């Protein structure tokens, strides 16, 4: 096992784990968005999407366990990186100026990450770990987004996710070694487009659902 844990335990190895798991979450976000867009087809269309998804049975459980495993790696490695990076410079500069490299996304990765973790737990408690015997997922959503507080929390969290992936997506490719004058500018642009699509796509859903009532 040493042959594997040694390379993965280095700074580059930890970043590789962040990149692979992060890219998996970007794929998940895309699928989640695609699924949720069925909402715009109406209540029945959405509920039938949910039924079809859940009819996959053990495949869904497998995907959930995979995501949980990746989340553990991403969160724990991220926390370790944050701690080590803090220790690499405990004495801060009195004047801080950006040279043009840092972005809103890259500067806030650990903080947006923690907010997202809290949100994911909150989100799962709202829609996953609830008794769904006498209700539909649409009904659950409709009830939740009747509250302006819920709308605010969800919209805020989606904006945070958009900021997180605006750095995360291209950064993952860089960490995996994919950097070339031919496509790196495209990847950086794609990150921004992806974050905007996720932000608008998922961000409008709470508002839309509350308007449907």
């Amino acid at each position, binding site marked *: 096992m040493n*042959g*594997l844990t*040694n*390379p*993965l335990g*280095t*700074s*580059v*190895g*930890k*970043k*590789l784990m962040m990149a692979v798991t992060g890219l998996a979450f970007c794929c998940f976000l895309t699928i989640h968005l695609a699924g949720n867009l069925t909402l715009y087809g109406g209540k029945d269309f959405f509920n039938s999407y949910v039924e079809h998804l859940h009819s996959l049975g053990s495949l869904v459980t497998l995907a959930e366990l995979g995501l949980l495993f990746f989340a553990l790696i991403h969160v724990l490695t991220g926390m370790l*990186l944050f701690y*080590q*990076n803090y*220790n*690499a*410079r*405990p*004495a*801060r*500069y*009195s*004047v*801080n*100026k*950006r*040279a*043009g*490299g*840092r972005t809103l996304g*890259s*500067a806030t*990765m650990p903080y947006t990450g923690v907010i997202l973790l809290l949100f994911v737990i909150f989100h799962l408690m709202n829609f996953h770990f609830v008794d769904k015997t006498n209700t539909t997922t649409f009904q659950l959503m409709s009830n939740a987004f009747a509250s302006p507080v819920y709308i605010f929390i969800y919209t805020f969290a989606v904006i945070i996710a958009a900021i997180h992936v605006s*750095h995360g997506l*291209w*950064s993952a490719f*860089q*960490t*995996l*070694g*994919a*950097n*070339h*004058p031919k496509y*790196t500018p495209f990847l950086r642009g794609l990150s921004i487009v992806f974050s905007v699509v996720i932000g608008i796509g998922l961000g409008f859903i709470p508002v839309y659902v509350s308007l449907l009532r």
Partner: protein
Amino acid sequence: MTKNINVTLKVWRQKGPHVKGGFETYPATDISTDMSFLEMIDCVNEQLTLDGKEPIAFDHDCREGICGMCGAVINGRCHGQEKGTTLCQLHMRHFSNGDTIVIEPWRATAFPMVKDLVVDRSAFDQIILAGGYISVNTGGAPDANSIPIAQEIAELAMDAAACIGCGACVAACPNASAMLFTSAKISQLALLPQGKPEATSRALAMVNKMDELCFGNCSNERECEAECPKEISISNIARLNREFVKAGLVSVVK
């Protein structure tokens, strides 16, 4: 056009590694705009010496931007705000009369404080010692161009080899990571045929040494690339990542 300006310096003063440091304010009067930043500090130091005070300690050597000895954080920017220059090549014409200039040393756990603006950058030497070389048996000098190298590859290797090891990448990195330095040193050898035989052990040894020295982890902030006086690209970091994956996960080396 030459003119003289007056500026105020807020300089980090620290007597030694384990002594508490702080900012001291000094006036720098009648400074010619033709002076370099280091010549300006020389003038201030002359006055401090005449006043019977300890002059400001700072590292410097060639003063023509090629040795990598000088460097400080000027108003929050490594080597000052000008792009692609070392501190010795930053000139006072980039400042205005009446400016207050904050001067701080490189700050990183891996670069321990020596005195004032001087930090110990021997951590870089240790990274080189870990594998930043090629092993060649001595003997007659080989014929030039006996190993063909594509022009594009030679250029890339030369771009990486432009690194002067000043430490600005570490100082600029929000995580105090040495990835740009290490990647430049790995790239300049990994790109060329002469560096290939030891590429695997080199990538593993240099990355491990870098971690051991308490540098931070790269999070692709790109501040290093923006502050590097030799404008070394982060494409070298991607190359290091590729070399590391090859070495750590798919090579025959155990």
